[in-house]
């Protein structure tokens, strides 16, 4: 699991360090500064929540994403109350992890406007706005979320169920999700084409989609 995450994050050109247990983590957190911390609650040697409390005392909780095998509301509430930025329940798709990490980094690094630029497409993640060639285009919430997710995972294969889960959550019937997502992507592609956006959503047969540009 950890290797998977490390590999995938390194592909995004992040510098990744890992700690295999509570004490290693404690030591590293004392010594180094990190932009984003993925904190497993069930650490060998102690609870991740205890580490979070220590971070809170040092005012360093921003950028913490809790990763928990227990999809428990209690942990989530506790973690977020202690100042964690986000909560990710195992099992998750790596694409979801990237989306969360990027969102945390975006929020942390820049104040105010924060654009994601892909060729002639510009996205404001906070304001939920999209421009193509500096011209504001459609505002459909769901399509925005789909596009942002694909852009966040640009040049990576996004599993269709990861996409479905991210955008529609529980509000999708898994039975015909494939056809459903296909039709949603088809609409999105058409709109992108209509606005002459210079990016392409590729379908990877049966598995998912990949946004490629430049």
């Amino acid at each position: 699991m950890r290797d998977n995450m490390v590999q995938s994050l390194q592909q995004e050109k992040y510098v990744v360090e890992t700690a295999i247990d509570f004490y290693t983590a404690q030591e590293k957190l004392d010594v180094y500064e990190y932009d984003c911390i993925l904190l497993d609650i069930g650490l060998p040697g102690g609870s991740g929540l205890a580490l979070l409390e220590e971070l809170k005392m040092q005012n360093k909780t921003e950028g913490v994403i809790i990763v928990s095998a227990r999809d428990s509301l209690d942990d989530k509430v506790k973690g977020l109350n202690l100042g964690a930025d986000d909560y990710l329940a195992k099992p998750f798709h790596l694409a979801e992890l990237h989306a969360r990490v990027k969102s945390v980094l975006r929020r942390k690094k820049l104040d105010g406007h924060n654009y994601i630029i892909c060729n002639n497409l510009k996205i404001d993640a906070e304001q939920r706005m999209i421009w193509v060639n500096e011209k504001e285009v459609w505002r459909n919430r769901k399509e925005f979320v789909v596009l942002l997710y694909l852009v966040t995972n640009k040049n990576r294969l996004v599993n269709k169920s990861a996409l479905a889960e991210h955008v529609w959550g529980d509000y999708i019937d898994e039975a015909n999700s494939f056809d459903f997502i296909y039709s949603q992507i088809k609409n999105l592609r058409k709109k992108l084409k209509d606005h002459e956006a210079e990016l392409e959503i590729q379908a990877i047969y049966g598995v998912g989609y990949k946004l490629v540009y430049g």
Partner: protein
Amino acid sequence: MKLLNYTSAYFAVILLIIITIWAGIFYYAMLDEIYDSIDDGLDNQKGLVIQKATTDTTVLNKNNFEESDYAIREITAADALNFQDTYIDTMMYMQNEKSDEPVRLLKTVFLQNGRYYRLQVATSMVEEDDLIKQLFYSILWLYIGLVVSIILFNNFLLKKIWYPFYQLLKELKKFRLDKPEPISPVKTGVDEFRLLNETVQKLLKRNIDAYTSQKDFIENASHELQTPLAISINKLEALAENNQLPESQLELLAAAMDNLERLTRLNKSLLLLSKIENKQFAEETPVSINQLAQKIVADFSDQTIFSSLRVDIMEKNSCIQNMNADVASILITNLIKNAIVHNKPGGYINVIIDKSSLVVENSGAGKPLDEEKIFNRFHSGGPSQASTGLGLAIVKAITHLYHFRTSYHFDQKHIITIHF
């Protein structure tokens, strides 16, 4: 029939038989005693008459009964020697009753001054039909008295004796395997009840243990499966990502991933079920079912538009329920999702909200489903291969948790109702 009444009924029948037999025996025994006593009286009177005859010879001429209760007639020596004392029942005219009444008559002979006389002494007899009537009523009253006292006895005393039993029964009625509260049987001195209490306690403990370990097993298994599942999917994703696979192999990969995804969903649903059953959603707030239904239907709109389903919400009344907000959302989501999955293209879904009920109707396969089974885990009524088969089981678990009632019926459409 209650145990108390059961014993009472048995007693009533048995008493009826016993008392009838006893009444017959009693009647003859009493009659025998009466005869005995009357005959003794006649014997005594005979002695008195004979004694009187020795002093007052006019007595010897009293041939008819008339005002007294004896009659004397002279007989021949030959007759007298063949004569034996006899007691007979006969009829005699009674002045006061103005009819012939039964009398007991003693015929005897005696010798005075060398002459033989026959003496008849009579005394009034009991009237047998009167006696029987009297006896019958007495016995009837006795019987009624006994039955009534047995019923009272049963109700007061037996109830007291059986108290530990009924108490245990009451505790058992309340007992629920999914929320085991230890039952506290009444302390009792009766060996059988004590044994019953102990056995029931042991049995319940075994059941609770089995239930808990089964539940824990499902929970732990689902938990332990999460990580390997996630890793497998991630590895397959990585494999699919490297762009070097031909389409035919991607197809295989996609199928494998789809199935792993399905397993993941199944696992999540099972975990959710355990959580609901373990009451891990504690915090309760007033939840507006109307607002929640509106929101969830809106969230499903992409899906319903895609499947060209018409969704109507009819709000007859506002419905506010005290429950965990997440659980309420899960409940309605699963109901709507179920209505979408088991629908047909171009069909419809109606959500009807009343003060204390939520109805979800949907068009679908035109035959009724088995009400007993649709809320069971993994009961698959439709062709939908990819659904987990746990949606309505989750609905049931939630309604069970909050003591709501669910019902299903079919009337050209599938109608699921939650009664809050």
